[in-house]
């Protein structure tokens, strides 16, 4: 099974309910630490101050979803940003959009947990 197929099969079932307070904290952290702010600042009217608002809006309108993976042994949190292209189809920001298409059900909103298998699948995809 290719990486792309595996992601398509599994990502939609990746949503585990989190404590709402914890979800809020991770989301805010994901917005604050968004690593591609410079790219968004190339858009007309976008500034350092406005980009967090833009990300918040994209999340609220389900155009952007955030997948997180937590490695307990190393106490390490990894965040991946999934941008909706059409319907349930998403790309992963930072990975080659021509090679990676992830299907995420519309039931998954905002934040979702990536299990170990999904996380490892994504790690195999070359960076852009």
């Amino acid at each position, binding site marked *: 099974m290719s990486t792309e197929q595996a992601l398509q099969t599994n990502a939609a079932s990746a949503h585990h309910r989190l404590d709402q307070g914890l979800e809020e904290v991770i989301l805010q952290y994901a917005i604050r630490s968004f690593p591609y702010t410079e790219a968004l600042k190339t*858009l007309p*009217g976008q500034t350092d101050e406005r980009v967090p*608002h*833009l990300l918040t*809006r*994209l*999340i609220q309108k389900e155009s952007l979803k955030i997948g997180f993976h937590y490695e307990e042994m190393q106490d390490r949190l990894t965040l991946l940003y999934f941008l909706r292209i059409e319907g349930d189809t998403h*790309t992963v920001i*930072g990975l080659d959009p021509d090679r990676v298409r992830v299907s995420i059900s519309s039931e998954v909103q905002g934040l979702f947990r990536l299990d170990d298998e999904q996380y490892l699948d994504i790690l195999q995809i070359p960076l852009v």
Partner: protein
Amino acid sequence: MSSEPTELPGRVALVGMSGVGKSHWSQHLEALGFLRWSCDELIAEALGQDASLDLRSTRDLARWMGHPYERRYPEAEATYLRWEERVTETLCERLNTLAPDQKVVIDTTGSFIYLPPEAIDRLRSQVLMIYLSSAPEQDQQMLQTFLEDPKPVIWGGAYQRQPEEAPDVALRRCYPLLLAERRRRYQELAHAVIDLPTQRTSGFDAEKLLHLAQAQQVAQVFS
């Protein structure tokens, strides 16, 4: 989620063929507090100030411009584009003088794509450019509308009459070619494309238009 303020794009230009909904959506955005600038109206106003042209309506403008097979057409086309470029430059300057939070929607003309690349790029760098697209299946209806109620049309070299071909026959043959070329150019310069079926989706409104366009623009950054 945080309750911090969120924002939609505040500087927008709508591009596309005549009759695809640019004026309709610009009016809806105006109702949301956007300043609305109509290039068609501004160009007509500018040309109307030239008393020698005696232009009082869009129909007058279409009559003055004429058809691409008429002798006066090349000069009228060039004059129109000169004015369109001036109007576009003026709008770009005005955008710079407004308060940053002042929202603006620019309802462009169908011929915006024929301006010099510098003029196009200047506006494109200041606004979110949304292409309201039409499908090739609508070409026949657009031709019919054009024949029944002519508007000033910039052909940009798309009218090519063949030997022995009657002018009106050539015009009917070339019109779909004109539309195809325009589609290609609109698509090329747009940050976002909103098609007609999407516009007609139940519940689709100006805010959804902005959001969808913004999401596409962000996707384009990472593509």
